[in-house]
């Protein structure tokens, strides 16, 4: 087995605005099972950051525990990383983000790390609208401990050993919508055409952005009867829309058909272009997104794409009115402005 990726790359690799090629965004060779959906998601994250020309040292990858949470080693090798405690990625991300608001925070978690042990932390980070991308690599099983059903396994889904799941699943997208998430998307690891623009939009979104990515576990949950197998997911995909992300700096040159298309302008001026497929759904209307999710689930379909976005979203820093300067860069002079400043504050309360 190879542990080192050859260092040669395609001689015609394109460079981004920073002059970097994709190689500058790579990590080390994955040690996940061959064919793991997580590797595709890693590749999509890498591609998104490359295309958006984000400086690698301006990104922090934070994860919990599990197969999914191993992946930050396999992408963005030149970025900051923190492999935290099981289910505690949100609190570490919150701390890091509060200390330095200038980085792009990419949280990577799994269905176990989010929907089981990390459920409490997940709920609260959604509520707080922390400015981060929260990616769930959702394979419906505990792959690291040989494939037991996880909390997102669908009822009736059959495991590799033949047992059928009898418990109701937690639908993380619906839950996030209920908890007030300001950006919710769902995608499939095998569909980078959809996943990459979604990740890019999520990175641009000021506030909490959840992307629940169905990511088949080839080793333990890719059997007939599983609702998270490659074949099943492909057969039951239903997209809200085709997604196209146009960054702020780029001119929109593609011409789109009128009628069924919708453009959503983001906080930083970027545009998400959606070719709408789902009926009665509006990406800016939380209730319609919840309805669309319910309808799809009742039909046995997996609804993907951008489900909901709050174009007016404000991140945690704006909500709690922190200073614009990253807190970690405030020196003693700013933190202890002296006796006179204290007197002034005290005076203001009199």
């Amino acid at each position, binding site marked *: 087995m*190879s542990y080192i*990726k050859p260092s*040669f*790359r395609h001689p*015609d*690799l394109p460079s981004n605005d920073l002059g970097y090629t994709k190689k500058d965004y790579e990590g080390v060779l994955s040690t996940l099972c061959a*064919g*793991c959906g997580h590797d595709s998601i890693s590749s999509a994250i890498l591609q998104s950051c490359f295309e958006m020309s984000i400086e690698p040292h301006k990104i922090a990858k934070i994860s919990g525990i599990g197969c999914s949470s191993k992946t930050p080693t396999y992408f963005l090798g030149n970025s900051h990383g923190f492999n935290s405690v099981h289910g505690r990625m949100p609190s570490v991300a919150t701390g890091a983000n509060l200390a330095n608001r200038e980085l792009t925070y990419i949280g990577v978690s799994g269905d176990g790390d989010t929907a089981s042990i990390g459920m409490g932390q997940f709920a609260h980070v959604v509520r707080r609208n922390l400015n981060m991308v929260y990616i769930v690599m959702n394979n419906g099983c505990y792959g690291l401990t040989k494939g037991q059903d996880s909390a997102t396994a669908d009822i009736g889904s059959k495991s590799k050993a033949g047992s059928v799941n009898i418990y109701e699943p937690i639908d993380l997208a619906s839950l996030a919508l209920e908890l007030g998430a300001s950006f919710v998307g769902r995608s499939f*690891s*095998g569909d980078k055409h959809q996943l990459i623009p979604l990740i890019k939009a999520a990175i641009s979104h000021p506030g909490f952005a959840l992307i629940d990515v169905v990511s088949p576990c080839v080793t333990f949950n890719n059997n007939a009867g599983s609702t998270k197998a490659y074949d099943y997911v492909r057969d039951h995909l239903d997209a809200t829309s085709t997604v196209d992300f146009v960054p702020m700096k780029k001119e929109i040159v593609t011409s789109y058909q009128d009628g069924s298309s919708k453009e959503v302008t983001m906080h930083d001026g970027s545009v998400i272009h959606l070719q709408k497929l789902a009926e009665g759904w509006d990406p800016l209307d939380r209730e319609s997104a919840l309805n669309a999710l319910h309808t799809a689930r009742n039909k046995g379909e997996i609804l993907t794409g951008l489900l909901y976005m709050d174009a007016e979203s404000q991140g945690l820093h704006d909500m709690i009115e922190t200073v614009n300067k990253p807190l970690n860069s405030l020196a003693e002079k700013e933190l202890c402005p002296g006796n006179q400043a204290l007197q002034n504050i005290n005076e203001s309360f009199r």
Partner: protein
Amino acid sequence: MKPTNLQGPDYYHKVVDCQYACPAHTPVPEYIRLIAEQRYTEAYMINWESNVFPGVLGRVCDRPCEPACRRGRVEEEPVAICRLKRVAADNKGDIQALLPAVAKKNGKKIVLIGAGPASLTVARDLLPLGYSIDIYDDQSAAGGMMRSQIPDFRLPEVVLNEEVNYILNMGAVTHFNSYVSSLQEVLDKPYDAVFIGTGAPKGRDLPALPGRQDGNENIHVGIDWLSSVAFEHTSRIGKRVIVLGGGNTAMDCCRTARRLGGDDVKVVVRSPFADMKASPWEKEDAMHEDIPIHDNHVPKEFVVEDGKLKGMIFEKVEAVYDKAGKRSLLPTGEDPVFMECDDVLVAIGQENTFPWIERDLGIDFNKWDMPAVDEQTFQTSLPRVFIGGDAAFGPENVITAVAQGHQVAISIDQFCRGEKVTERPAPNFEIASQKMGMHEWLYGNDVVDSQRFIVPLVDKKKALKNHKVEVELGFDIATGLKEAERCLNCDMQTVFSTSLCIECDACVDICPTDCITFAEDGEEKDLRTRLSAPATNQTQDLLVSKTLPTKRLMIKDENVCLHCGLCAERCPTAAWDMQKFFYSESQVGRTCKK
């Protein structure tokens, strides 16, 4: 696009760029792997079977394989294939026992005119089958231009003798110092077939240039002069020498002149430096020996005073290219340049000449007054006469002569057995999985980063003192191993099974050089633009799968594939497999007869 046709050897053969480019289709990656395992004798024999003169070619081959080498497309320099061949030759053991056994005489008699690489290849292929072979040559030993035109300091005589003797010792009857002056006389003898491998023996001259006749004593035709040095008729030359010409013969001439007393040797060539016919490394070697190359100088006159050559006058020109890329050399209008010299060597090309072939024998001659030769069978219009090597289509190189020799042997064998010469045996090929375990392969799939290693040279002073001292020392064993590691193993094919693929994208994500794409169908021209990395190298094929369940196709651009096997390692269903493709060009007696 239609799925790639993988029946027969054609597709995978083309992927092995070096082997495909080699006129004799030597299985290069296979022998380089054997060198990496220090199995030099086996590496040598793989070479010997396909190119007959590994020791010679490991030193003087024109190396069409190296510009083709895939490594040259992913980094600066190709693998030093040629010099690795020499490593195999230098370090091999005794190969006597591995040479083919010679069968009982089959009663057929063949005559070979000329004892150069083409003839010797014909002899090597036919002798083991029981043919009786007579060889005629006007030189005193076999080897043809390898002996007469390639200087000792590039190809030591002992190396040449060894490989020539492997063939002669199979029982060829040699007639040296025998110039054949009439083909009629040969045809009158009871030979079943005649092969003409007389090379391109006539060096071009400048008969019309003023002063040519008067200065004759100090003006020499390059290949004749090299030959008289090789056979020790000439051992000195003047102190100041001008070599005319820009090909490999000119390089051999100037370097030989440096060793025979030429202190001030210069090469003067009509064309720009970049257009010179000489291989880049031969130009480098000449300049390394303090030989300047004056380009864009057209010879105008030999200056002779009192019957003695004083120098030459040149006109300065510049190359101008028209829209079609056709070059013309236009005078710059500058004053003519005079260069002093004691001797001039004219190495401006060579050609075939057949004054000894009567025109009424039934052999058709073409508009250039050359015998018409079939490009596949090398047969002339007189069915029992075959022509190959430089004699057939003009000056090429040793490896081309060898490749043609193999084809001639097939033709002669077919002809003598009463079969059609156009019915050729098919090449042999095998393809076998290299899977050894979950993610283990039978070949070393690590891709090393090392740059091409440089072959050490003998001390320049020592080299220039004696024209028999070989300049290149060859790789030592350790460097040879390191250079061998640079080979990308392009014969380890990435074989794709559509039916096993679950389209998980793992191969796309892992491929270091973005070779693999799953894409919607389309015309090739359009598809080439929308792959993971655009496939702009049109000489490299696309491997196209059958339609996958999502209606897409798997498309792999072969161009810069590292053959690292990562796609196959990351494939959960073994839809990708690494399979060794071994191709050996058809040779007489190698394939089962119907």
